């Protein structure tokens, strides 16, 4: 589906992609220094599919994601301060220091939570779509998950629920080729995860995940279908993650070659590719892109300062929000 994007929207696409890239660059450094604890799963290389998908959504649409959790809320429009503060385990974090890197959520922008049990978000996203439908809202619900999650039972059950009830859901498989170290060739016989859509009686679409515009068009078509009451779509974005499954896993697992990583980085990087198109096809001046870049760098630096200046949660907070507060 051809979408006419305004210059502002194109600029916003670039802005969101580099917000993810620079935010995660900063996070990797903070993790190396020991300032971020726990595990850190980055989406370097996957920014195109994230932003292409999220830009097809409205702010009040719902989104569910996974352990590779930073890019999704940034793509959906969340402010960086609360996200970085969460990574740094501060009281001002979006989850008030209880979720951390794998579990970002910002309900104010429709980000209903990233879940770290692989595949578990798929039925939840279907449920949010059911809620929107039953309430008569024209909201849609989009779920990001990886190729690993596509082998989980939750994938089957969640998508089938959305299909039989014709729910306004978009299932976006971020196929980066590897479930941790295990290549997709070892875990699925079908060439495309999207081919499985036929088994649910819904459309399946394969798209180049490194092309932000192509993803945006594919997801926009699915959103249009969903809002029109025509049910869910399974979209598979072929993408690639540059860094390890999680930062600091300690050793080189040697499941892929440096040449493979380099070939994706050098010829298919979603940000570099889009920048080239902005200059050539969309008539941006280099200075305009530089201005976006500089503003994002400032934003990321601000988020780190904000986070570091924020207090850690009071230890007593460990016991809050287990249940709803008791209303007298």
């Amino acid at each position: 589906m051809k979408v006419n994007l305004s210059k502002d929207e194109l600029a916003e696409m670039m802005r969101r992609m580099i917000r993810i890239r620079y935010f995660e660059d900063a996070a990797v450094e903070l993790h190396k220094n020991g300032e971020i604890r726990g595990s850190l799963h980055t989406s370097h290389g996957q920014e195109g599919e994230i932003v292409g998908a999220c830009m097809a959504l409205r702010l009040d649409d719902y989104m569910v994601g996974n352990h590779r959790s930073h890019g999704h809320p940034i793509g959906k429009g969340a402010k960086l301060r609360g996200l970085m503060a969460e990574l740094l385990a501060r009281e001002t974090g979006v989850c008030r220091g209880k979720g951390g890197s794998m579990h970002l959520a910002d309900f104010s922008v429709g980000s209903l939570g990233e879940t770290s049990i692989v595949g578990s978000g798929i039925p939840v996203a279907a449920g949010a779509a059911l809620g929107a439908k039953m309430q008569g809202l024209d909201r849609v619900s989009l779920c990001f998950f990886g190729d690993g999650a596509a082998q989980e039972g939750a994938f089957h059950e969640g998508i089938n629920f959305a299909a039989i009830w014709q729910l306004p859901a978009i299932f976006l498989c971020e196929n980066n080729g590897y479930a941790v170290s295990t290549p997709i060739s070892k875990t699925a016989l079908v060439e495309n995860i999207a081919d499985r859509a036929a088994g649910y009686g819904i459309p399946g679409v394969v798209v180049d995940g490194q092309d932000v515009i192509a993803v945006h068009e594919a997801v926009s078509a699915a959103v249009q279908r969903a809002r029109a009451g025509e049910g869910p779509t399974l979209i598979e974005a072929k993408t690639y993650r540059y860094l390890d499954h999680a930062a600091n896993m300690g050793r080189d697992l040697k499941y892929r070659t440096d040449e493979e990583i380099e070939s994706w980085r050098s010829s298919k990087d979603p940000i570099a590719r889009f920048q080239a198109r902005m200059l050539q096809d969309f008539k941006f001046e280099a200075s305009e892109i530089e201005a976006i870049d500089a503003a994002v760098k400032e934003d990321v630096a601000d988020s780190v300062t904000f986070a570091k200046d924020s207090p850690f949660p009071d230890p007593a907070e460990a016991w809050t929000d287990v249940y709803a507060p008791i209303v007298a």
Partner: protein
Amino acid sequence: MASKTFLQAIRDAQYEEMQRDSNVFIMGEDVECNMFGTTTGMIDDFGRDRVRDTPIAEAGMAGVAAGAAMVGMRPIVDFTIAPFLYPAFDQIMSIIAKSRYLYGGQAKVPVVLRANMIYGNGNAAQHSDRPYSMFMHMPGLKIMVPSNAYDMKGLMKSAIRDEDPVMSFEDVALWSTKSEIPDEEYLIPFGVADIKQKGKDCTIVAIGAMVNLALAAAEELAKENISVEIVDPRTLAPLDTATILESVKKTGRLVIVDAAFSRCSAASEISAIVSDEGFWDLRAPIVRVTTADTHIPFSSSMEPQLYPSKDKVVAAVRRTLS
């Protein structure tokens, strides 16, 4: 006042709450055809949008309910038989129980997960569990195990209105038992035990259908002038420990009757709490009357002996007094 069965109480609570709040809906296997009698008349009055038959996909049912709840709905999910909760374990434990906490209070997951417990009828190991203690282990869940139709209705209505996830464990042995149910609306709060009868010699804490066993045992013991106090906790999470400790303080003796397996059971937890907080009130060791720690066999030559019985409860109380 009207005499209603346990099943009618479930149905009436659901029906009234669906009338009251358009966000309440029911989903589960065979709910449209009213397989077990808890959705009588509902398809006619609420339609297929709010009485939803599902595929046999328990993880999907739980996860879909969780997602709907996060955006403002109040789903009731009928899992039918309790071991059918196991395929949904991930969704219940990692999503439903934890989302409020994990996302720093942004998420609320007001779902009611219903499961019935059928045992003692030759349905063998995979259909006969009473698994509430597995879920008691997990913070974030509320758990009700009502012992009669009156409590069932009042607790179910509270469960549907609760801001947190509630699991309702419904003993099939109680299905046809009746209570007098008031015509006017009433709610029973969670975490408030009911003292079924006062007594001074020994406290029996009995869970779900075991309350009736305890009442029968108490009647027999009364003939020997043994006075038993019976506490029905009604909800296991939250658990009304204050009422249990208060009763033990008075009687000095405690028997816990729980139809679940003994190991890591609700009975074990109650026993631990009373040992921790009421030890100096005890005049005898705590006795648990539970189901034996083996699987439930099919044959009637093996099955009945495994469960708590009136005689076992009577013997347990005598043991505390000997």
